[in-house]
């Protein structure tokens, strides 16, 4: 009988301890990042693997270092890369990357002999269709170069797919 009472009192005490911990945390500052009002600090994205991007060559930020050797295409387990060599020279004419298939494994980055690939830190990329995730990396490289040169963003503004008007997207 006495034992049961003591057990129950101990139990009650344990509940009070738990409640006091919860209470303490209730009054402590917020721990979460309220996206989109807040975003994480850029340094915490330093090595985050976002969609691939091409590394610009040392002399021209709009030019790629890629030599169209196809090593990345062959290394990729998901077949998400397409590199087509351009006329004359080694520079690629087409560099398409399907982000919807990519598993961010870095096999392509590690296979590239020219160190022409790296991961971007675009964590806020969104798309409504799969086709929007087929990224043209050459265009992306040019846009980045234009932006860095001080010009406006060279990319056309993203168009909503047909049938989905901007108001409907909220």
């Amino acid at each position: 009988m006495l034992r049961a009472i003591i057990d129950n009192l101990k139990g009650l005490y344990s509940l009070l301890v738990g409640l006091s911990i919860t209470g303490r945390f209730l009054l402590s500052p917020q721990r979460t990042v309220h996206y989109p009002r807040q975003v994480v600090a850029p340094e915490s994205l330093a090595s985050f693997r976002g969609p691939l991007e091409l590394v610009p060559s040392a002399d021209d930020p709009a030019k790629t270092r890629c030599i169209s050797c196809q090593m990345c295409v062959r290394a990729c387990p998901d077949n998400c890369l397409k590199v087509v060599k351009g006329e004359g020279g080694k520079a690629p004419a087409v560099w398409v990357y399907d982000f919807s298939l990519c598993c961010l494994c870095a096999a392509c980055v590690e296979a590239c002999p020219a160190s022409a690939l790296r991961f971007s830190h675009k964590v806020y990329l969104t798309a409504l269709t799969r086709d929007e995730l087929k990224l043209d990396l050459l265009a992306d490289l040019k846009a980045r170069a234009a932006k860095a040169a001080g010009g406006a963003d060279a990319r056309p503004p993203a168009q909503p797919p047909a049938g989905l008007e901007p108001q409907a997207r909220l």
Partner: protein
Amino acid sequence: MSGLGFINPFGVRELPGTTTGDFYTANFAQKAQPGRVILNLGPQHPSTHGVLRILAEMEGEYVWRAEPVLGYLHRMHERMAEVKTPQQFLPNMGRVDYLHPLAWNWAYVGAVEKLAGLEPPERAQWLRTLSCELNRISSHLLWWGAFVMDLGGVTPILYAFEEREKINDILQIITGSRLTMSYFRLGGVCADADDRFLALTREFVPYLRERLKMYRGLVTDNVILRRRLEGVGPIDVDMCRRYGATGPVLRAAGSPNDLRRDVPYGTYPQHDFWPATGFPDDCFGRYLVRLAEIESSLDIVEQAVRGLPPGPIMVDKPPKANFKMPAGETYFAVEGARGQVGVHLVSDGGKNPYRVKLRAPGFSNLSLFAEAAQGTLLADAVAILGSLDLVIPEIDR
């Protein structure tokens, strides 16, 4: 079929000459006794962690018979291993068990290295231990939160997530991702630890030790949790042996089996830790074992940060894209957060392995559920299910 007294919980009309439900339900219901209710838990149910389905024959509130139905998350990982080179298959391993991906990384890389005779450099080995243990802690933390949530306490998982996010931040520095990590490479690891990584890890160890004390006050000592778990679902060593259960389930049953000690691999022989045992064999024991393992993993992490030697992180000649394994057969197992993670690899000397068998600890741990849940209350069966720490993608592969 009316003789079965089959009651359909979802109100689907019974067609003449058939039982309601699919093949599994119909098959399961055949052995049901009159007056019993067949209950479907899952495949989409908050208490089953992903798409696991449990069929239970209920006598009132008591589970008379239970049977797990698997395969809803089968993704043919073993087949994929046969059609891809080892390097290309590596990212799959992070997807098999998304809570402890680095153990699976290690199991596969270890199997290939064992067959090909590759010996990763010292620093890579230490980094493997370090990252794998950090990952184990994050896996146990998530289990802790999810288990308590199964039992009806919704808040603790949010505390667990705070720590988990910290570990993710740390692991992201070297692995580049936060969930399905693919960090190990044949012959080493893919990125070196920088100062930020080491500093954050050093900071994290005492921080989590403090937090574990808070966990104790918040959950472990809580009378509601104790009365809910103590004495529920005893699983003894014999039952573990019959079903092949490993990991914390086996250690809670009282057997100190831990591959990190029994079949040492990597740098574990150089670490000072002891498998957590000496707990009761019920749900509460399995709860305590995992919390104790977080602490022992913290010790290993601390030792690994202190002892991390300088040097390369990759063998001199890393395997190229045209790498061919020698013909042969090998098995390599590591201790994952849920138990023995094994890879049985058969190679015929070609670019792709001939056959890869993945041994998922969760599969064996789940197998004993049918026996352990027999005769328990339904609510206790959910507690047993939670205490097994199941990750369904790993079970279904």
